[in-house]
């Protein structure tokens, strides 16, 4: 059986299911209000500091990095219940009896839920891009903004989404949710000067510091990264994402065989 139409069908269905989910919009709206309410002034100050003398791409990269500091947490937590939901609603067996392959359904679920959850993040990003374009009085900002989003936000969100689906297939969802936010701080935001062993400061950071600093020359993230390291970081994140999805497929297949 040709699996591509199955993949598209699953993707479309999962996308619709997630985009119509009240929890997605409630979370993203309150999340945005919380971040802007507390840190809106800080963001504005950062983006407007020497804005005239800075290349537009560095401003956009800074905004993309700021978005990536917070929103992957919401994405990760919101995707964490997608696989356990199939079990809870007792549809898992029904799916297993359907002609679509497990790998196709898994990929469809992954991309469908991830893309739907990405929409509110993209809206917030575009709102900030609009402000930058207005301040700079330059419409070129809008096409330029695609590059930082693709290089900084997308790899991180792909990475986080894969772990959210994979970890909750073996772990209690609330446990994953709080461990995940703990990881996000420890592995991305914790400064290395404290002497605590951390992934923070390495290229394995989905927050995207290496991309923002190395590829776009964002000056406030003091990593001193090169463009090559930025690219390496993207490749590493995407490779681990693929590995995690492949492991999840193997695990689900094994679980299915044991039933």
């Amino acid at each position, binding site marked *: 059986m040709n699996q591509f139409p199955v993949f598209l069908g699953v993707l479309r269905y999962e996308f619709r299911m997630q985009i119509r*989910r*009240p*929890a*997605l919009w*409630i*979370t993203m709206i*309150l*999340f945005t209000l*919380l*971040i802007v309410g*507390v*840190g809106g002034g*800080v963001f504005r100050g950062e983006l407007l500091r020497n804005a005239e003398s800075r290349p537009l791409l560095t401003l956009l990269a800074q905004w993309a990095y700021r978005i990536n*500091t*917070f929103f992957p*947490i*919401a994405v990760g*937590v*919101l995707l*964490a*219940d997608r696989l356990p*939901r199939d079990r809870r609603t007792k549809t898992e067996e029904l799916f297993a009896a359907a002609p679509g392959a497990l790998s196709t359904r898994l990929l469809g679920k992954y991309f469908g839920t991830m893309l739907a959850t990405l929409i509110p993040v993209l809206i917030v990003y575009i709102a900030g891009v609009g402000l930058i374009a207005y301040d700079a009085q330059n419409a070129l900002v809008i096409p330029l903004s695609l590059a930082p989003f693709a290089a900084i936000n997308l790899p991180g969100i792909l990475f986080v989404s894969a772990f959210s689906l994979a970890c909750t297939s073996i772990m*209690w*969802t*609330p*446990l994953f*949710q*709080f461990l*995940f*936010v*703990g990881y*996000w*701080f420890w592995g991305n*935001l914790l400064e290395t000067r*404290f*002497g*605590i*062993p951390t992934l923070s400061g390495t290229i394995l950071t989905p927050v995207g510091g290496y991309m923002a600093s190395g590829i776009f020359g964002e000056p406030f993230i003091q990593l001193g990264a090169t463009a090559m390291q930025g690219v390496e970081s993207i490749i590493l994140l995407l490779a681990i994402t693929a590995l995690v999805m492949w492991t999840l497929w193997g695990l689900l297949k094994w679980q299915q065989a044991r039933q």
Partner: protein
Amino acid sequence: MFSDRFWYELKLMGKRVTLTPILVMVGFAAIAALLHYLKVDPSRTLSAALEMILPLMTGVVISAVTSQDQAIELQLTVPRKYHLTVMRRLAIILGWTAIVTLLSSVIIAILNLGFIPRDTPAWTNPLPFLVGQLTWIATLLWYVAAGLVLGLLTRSRAASAALLCGIWIVEIVFKDLFGISAWLKPIFLFPTTLFALGGPLSQTLFNYWLDNRLEVLATGLLLLPIGWLLLRSPERLLKGSSEE
């Protein structure tokens, strides 16, 4: 009767609710041992476990337990009021986490790894260990109340957990803003760990810390009646119970 219901609720929530705080502390004990081996002082990390990690964990678990109940229709028909059942569950989770945290705090103090704010001179605070427990008590109570309210308002485990996690990370990233803004101070949840307030402090700084702890405790206590009121609305409880 009381003990029967207590054990029944405990069984219903499952071992994962009781084991999670213990596993968290065992994990942090291992991290502390690693830091000691690396010649890094583990006291602030252990303080983070008590002040930042266990309250977040409890808030997420509370929101998961209170936001949805598979037998909600049945619960609303039995003579025992549903809000009392939820409050019992909440008390069990809060009580258990508090016991685990207090025991961990005692062990940490015995090992001389405490990260407790102390005033100098110490005459205004004759019980530094007990007052120091406000480090986690205030935050734990705040997160429990916030978990209850957010769980009931959103009627979604994912949304309430995401918001609790969002508050957590926003407090860390904007800690300086929380530290200096008068309107954010009553909800500044982790000053001890984030501002490294363990050990002897000047009287001004100690008073700042103590005021903050009491304000966080008060805002947490203010959230509890809101949760209580939300629990007393059967329509709200039924609506959205199957939307996930």
